[in-house]
C-alpha cells in the first residue's frame, strides 16, 4: 500500500474518538484543571493523537456585562482591540510578525459575559513561544493615548460595517427596551454616543485593564497536540509573576418587569419587516431546571420542525423565518423569538400566533415522544460541534466562561434528560407572562 495512504488511514483511525451520544457524558474528553497561586486557572485537553494542531484560548471573564458605569458601553469590545497593541518588549509590529510567521489562525471576540482570544497553530515545537508571547501580551500590554485614539476610530468603522443591517437595529432596540438597569441593556458594540467618546477614555482604559485583565479573572484553555506537563512548565514559567486584581464586579440587579413593553423602528429603505418578542428569563445554571426546560421549550415551539414554524414558513409562507434565541448568560437574560415577515400587514397576525403558541405551552403538556426528539437533536448538535480540535476548544470556552468548570457540560446535558413535559409547562407559566414581555417591530421604508 502506498505509504502515505497507509499513514493517513492509521492517523484517521486514531484521530477521532467515538463520540458517546448514547452515553451519559456528552463531553467525552478527559481534561485537567490546574490553578496557579495567583488565581490563573488552566483547563488542558491534550489530544496527542490529533496531529499538529493546538488551540490556545485566553478567556477573560469580562464582557459588556461589566460595563456598568454610564458612558462606558462597548468598552469590553474596545479593550479587546487594544489587546493587539503589543508590549514594550514585543511591540505591535513584532507581535504581528510573530503570529504571521507562525501562520496562526488568531483573533479575539467579545460577548456579553466574556472576551475570548485565541491562537490556533500547527506544531508543538511552537508551544513555548506562544505561551511566552501571550503571557507577555496579557501581563505587559502597553499603549499610549495616541494609539488608543486611533483604535477608537476603528470601532467606529466596525459600527459602520454593520450599520446596514436591520437585524442589528432590532436587536439593539429589544435589549434597550427590555432592560432597565442591567448592563445587558446595551449590546457588545455599545451605544454610538459612547463609541464616539472612546478617544477620550485613555484613563478609564487603564482602570479597566487593572480590574479585569488579571489572573484571577482569566482562564487558559489549551486543546490539541502537546504534553500537559510541558504546557504547565511553560505556564508557570511565564504567568506566575502576574498579580491578582481582587476586584469584585457588582452588576445592577434588573428589577422585575411589571408591564408589557413595545418599541418600533422605521428602517428608511426597503427591507423585510421584522418582529421580536422577548421575556426576561433565568441565568445559566446546570442545577436549576428553569434554563434547561426553557431551552427545550424553545426548540419544541420554534424549531424548524415545530408546527408553528412549519405553518408560517412553509404552509402559509407568511414568514421567511422564525426562531428562538436563548443564549446562556451569567445573569438573568432574555428568551426571545424573532421573525422575518414577508409583508408588513401580517405583523399583528404573526405576533398573535407567537403569543398563542406560548399560551398553548402553558395549557397543554408536550408529548414524551416530541421531548425525546428534541433531546436527541441537542445531543447530536453538540456532538457535531466536537469534530475538530478547534471545535472542541470553541465549544468549551463558552461553558468555561460561565462556570469555570468544563464539567458543567455533562451536568447540563444530564439535566436535560430529567426535564419532563410538566417542567416545560411550569416554566412556560412562570416566564411567559404578559407583563414580562417586550415586543419590538421594524418596518421598511421607500427611501433609496
Amino acid at each position: 500500500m502506498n505509504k502515505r495512504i497507509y499513514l493517513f488511514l492509521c492517523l484517521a483511525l486514531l484521530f477521532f474518538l467515538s463520540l458517546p451520544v448514547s452515553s451519559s457524558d456528552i463531553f467525552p474528553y478527559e481534561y485537567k484543571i490546574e490553578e496557579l497561586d495567583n488565581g490563573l486557572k488552566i483547563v488542558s485537553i491534550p489530544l496527542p493523537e490529533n496531529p499538529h494542531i493546538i488551540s490556545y484560548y485566553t478567556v477573560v471573564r469580562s464582557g459588556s456585562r461589566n460595563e456598568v458605569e454610564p458612558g462606558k458601553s462597548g468598552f469590553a469590545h474596545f479593550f479587546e482591540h487594544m489587546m493587539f497593541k503589543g508590549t514594550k518588549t514585543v511591540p505591535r509590529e513584532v507581535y504581528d510578525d510573530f503570529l504571521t510567521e507562525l501562520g496562526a489562525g488568531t483573533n479575539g471576540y467579545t460577548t456579553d459575559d466574556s472576551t475570548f482570544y485565541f491562537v490556533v497553530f500547527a506544531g508543538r515545537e511552537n508551544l513555548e513561544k506562544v505561551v511566552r508571547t501571550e503571557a507577555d501580551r496579557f501581563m505587559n500590554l502597553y499603549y499610549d493615548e495616541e494609539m488608543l485614539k486611533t483604535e477608537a476610530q476603528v470601532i467606529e468603522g466596525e459600527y459602520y460595517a454593520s450599520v446596514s443591517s436591520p437585524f442589528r437595529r432590532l436587536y439593539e432596540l429589544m435589549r434597550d427596551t427590555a432592560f432597565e438597569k442591567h448592563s445587558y441593556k446595551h449590546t457588545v458594540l455599545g451605544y454610538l454616543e459612547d463609541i464616539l467618546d472612546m478617544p477620550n477614555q485613555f484613563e478609564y482604559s487603564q482602570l479597566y485593564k487593572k480590574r479585569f485583565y488579571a489572573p484571577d479573572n482569566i482562564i487558559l484553555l489549551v486543546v490539541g497536540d502537546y504534553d500537559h506537563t510541558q504546557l504547565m512548565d511553560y505556564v508557570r514559567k511565564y504567568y506566575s509573576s502576574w498579580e491578582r486584581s481582587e476586584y469584585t464586579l457588582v452588576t445592577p440587579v434588573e428589577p422585575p418587569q411589571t408591564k408589557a413593553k413595545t418599541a418600533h423602528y422605521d428602517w428608511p429603505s426597503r427591507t423585510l419587516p421584522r418582529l421580536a418578542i422577548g421575556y426576561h428569563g433565568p441565568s445559566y445554571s446546570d442545577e436549576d431546571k428553569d434554563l434547561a426546560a426553557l431551552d427545550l421549550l424553545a426548540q419544541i415551539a420554534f424549531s424548524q420542525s415545530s408546527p408553528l414554524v412549519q405553518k408560517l414558513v412553509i404552509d402559509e409562507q407568511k414568514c421567511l423565518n422564525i426562531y428562538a434565541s436563548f443564549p446562556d448568560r451569567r445573569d438573568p437574560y432574555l428568551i426571545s423569538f424573532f421573525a422575518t415577515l414577508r409583508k408588513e400587514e401580517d405583523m399583528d397576525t404573526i405576533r398573535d400566533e407567537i403569543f398563542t403558541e406560548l399560551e398553548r405551552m402553558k395549557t397543554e403538556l408536550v408529548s414524551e415522544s416530541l421531548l425525546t426528539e428534541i433531546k436527541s437533536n441537542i445531543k447530536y448538535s453538540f456532538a457535531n460541534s466536537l469534530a475538530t480540535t478547534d471545535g472542541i476548544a470553541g465549544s468549551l470556552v463558552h461553558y468555561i466562561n460561565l462556570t469555570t468548570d468544563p464539567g458543567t457540560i455533562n451536568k447540563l446535558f444530564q439535566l436535560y434528560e430529567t426535564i419532563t413535559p410538566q417542567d416545560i409547562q411550569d416554566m412556560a407559566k412562570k416566564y411567559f407572562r404578559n407583563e414580562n414581555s417586550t415586543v419590538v417591530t421594524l418596518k421598511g421604508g421607500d427611501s433609496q
Partner: protein
Amino acid sequence: MKKKRNQILIGCMILCAFLILGSCAKKNPDKIKAELLPLENNPLVTFRILFNIGSAHDPSGKEGLCQLTWSMLSQGGSQDMTYKEIIKKFYPMATQVGLRVDKEMSVFTGQVHVDNLEGFYLIFKSMLLDPGFREEDFIRLKTNQLDYLDKTLVSNQDEQFGKEILNLMMYKGHPYGHNEAGTLEGLKTISLEDVKEFYQSHFLQGNVTIGLAGGFQNTFLNKVRDDFSALPEGYTPLLNLPELRMPDGLEFVIAEKQTPATAISMGFPVTISKADDDFFALWVAGSHFGEHRQHLSLLFQKIREERGQNYGDYAYVEHFFQGRGKFPATNYCRQQQYFSIWIRPLANSNRHFVIRQALRELKKLLEEGISEERFELTRKYLLNYTKLYAQTLGERLGWKMDSKYYGYKDFLAEVQIRLPKLTHEDVNKAIQKYLNMENLHIAVITQDGEALKNALIANTPSPITYANPDMPEEILNEDLMIQTFPLDIKVDKVHIAAASDFFQKEGLPPQDE
C-alpha cells in the same frame, strides 16, 4: 492486531472502490466521479455532492434558474415526502442539507452521525434523485430569491452589495455577469416547468462528483454509487467563456443610498488561476498586499492600523468566499478569476481619501514590488497558515475536489513544495505581469454620489481629520501626498445609479438622470 489488519483491509477496499470510480470517470466523462476520505471509527459522515454547474449556466433571460432549481432539491420535498416531513425526520438527527451555488460550480452538503447514516441518506438521496417539484415549494423558494435581490442585498448588506456591483462591472455580457440569485426580471419569468427542464438537462452523471468522508463502510459507498449511477449518462461541457474585458481606465459605479458609511470594492479580471505556475508567486503578492482579515495585510496596516479608518482592508488574487473562521471556502472554482480590493465601510467624509490611498498603495506595489523581508515573512506565513485550512471533514473533501479541478493531486501539499522554491524575483515579476493600477473597476455605495463624482473628476484634495490630534508626523506627511494623489478619471467613466435599481435586469442599471 487482528482488528488493525481488518481496519487496513477495509481501508484498502474503499480505496479500490475509489480507484474504480475514478478510472470510470477518466475513461468516460459521462460517468459519475467520486472523492472519498474514509476514516474508520470516525463518528461522523460528511457528504459533498459537487456539480460542475452554476449560475453561469442560467439560460439568457432566466437568470437565477440554477440556484432556484438546486434550492428545490435542498429545500423542497421529494416525490415521497413533503419538505415539512423531511424537516421533521431530519430534526432528531440534528442535520440538514446545505447548498452553495457559484458561477460554474454548486455543492450540496450534509453531515450526520453514523448512528443516523442510513436514515439520513435515504432522504438525502430522494431529495436529489427524486425531487418532488411541488408548486408550493416553488412559490416559497422563488419568493425567497426575489426578496433577497429586491430587499436584502441592496438594503441590508452593503459590504456584499459592493462586491456584487464589482461583479456586474467586470462581467458585463458574460455568463458570470449576474448574481447567483439572478435578476428580478429573469426570476419572474421562471416557471416550474423551467426548473424541471433545467434539472433534467443538467442533473447528469458526468456533472456529478460524489464526495464522502468519515466513518462510512464500503457497502455504503457501493450503495451510493449504485444510486447515483441511475442518473442519465452525459455531461455538460466546460463553458466556453468569452475573453475577459479589462476596464478602460478607472471606471466607477456609484450606488446611491442614504447611509452614514461608504462601502468600496475594486478590481479587474486576471488571466491566471490556481492551475497556473505563476499563481503561487501572485498569491504571495496578494497575501502581502491584503491577506484576508490578517494583520499581515499591508492595506490593513496602512488604512486601519495606522489611521483607524475602518474595520479592515484586504486584497485577493482570485474569487474569495470566507468559510469556517477566516479560511477560504472550497468549491468556488472558476475558469476565470479576478483581482480585487475590499475596503470595509468607512465614514462618508473619508471616502475620497481612502480610494486614493488604496490606489496609491497598489501603484507602490507595482513600482516598488515586495521587499525581500516581506517576501520571506509572507511565504513563511502561507506555509504555516495553509496547514490549518483543511480541518473538518467537509474542508478536507472540498480541498481534494478543488485540487482535482485545478490539476493537482493535493493542492495544499503542492503549496509545501512550490513555495520554498519561489524567489523574491518571481513574486515581483508576477506583480508586473498580472496587476495594474490604471485600469480598474471601482464600486462605491454611498450617499450624495454626485459630490463624490465631481470631486473624483476634479481631483479635489481630500484631507481627513483624526480623533487623535497627535498623529505621527510621518503619517501626516504621507497624508499630504495621499490627499492630492492624482487620479485620471473621465467624466463618462463615473456611473451613478440608485441602489434600489440594481439587480432588476441583467447588467448595470441605467445612469440616474
